[in-house]
């Protein structure tokens, strides 16, 4: 079960990084690209903050095992990369 979650997370994260790199190389050099990347970074930052807050509460009040923390951190990073990729796709169409 855990391996399946890790695999899905790795695939999603790889997709997110792929979208980000592809956009940075193809369109991210000029001012519109930089404006899009700035907006996307704002969205990703929100998820980083939320994930950090969640982990503080999770570790403080729920006394999780190492495996649970590892899984939640994997999911967190996956969420950050995916949110980054989705924001890029949305902003590309909007802007």
């Amino acid at each position, binding site marked *: 079960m855990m391996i399946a979650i890790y695999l899905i997370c790795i695939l999603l994260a790889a997709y997110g990084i792929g979208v980000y790199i592809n956009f940075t190389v193809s*369109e991210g*050099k000029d001012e519109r690209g930089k404006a899009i990347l700035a907006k996307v970074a704002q969205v990703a930052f929100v998820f980083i903050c939320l994930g950090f807050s969640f982990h503080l509460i999770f570790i403080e009040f729920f006394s999780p095992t190492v495996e649970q923390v590892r899984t939640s951190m994997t999911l967190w990073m996956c969420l950050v990369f995916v949110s980054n990729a989705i924001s890029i796709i949305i902003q590309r169409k909007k802007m």
Partner: protein
Amino acid sequence: MKKSERVLSNNLYLLRAEKRWTQKYVAEQLGVTRQTIHSLEANKYNPSLVLAFDISQLYEKSIDEIFSYEKKGERE
């Protein structure tokens, strides 16, 4: 107090069509991507002041002739 929504519009598409330039050519001249030119022409993206000056030089028109800052509507 009334606030009016102002929108920056442009006639870049018409100017480009007059000159029979492609989006790719304009993008190369301005040092931006073709997608940026498309977004500018579709009024989806407002250019920076530097890019606006570059555009005005490329088309040999003043910024006022290319861009207009209009009131779209009024709301309270």
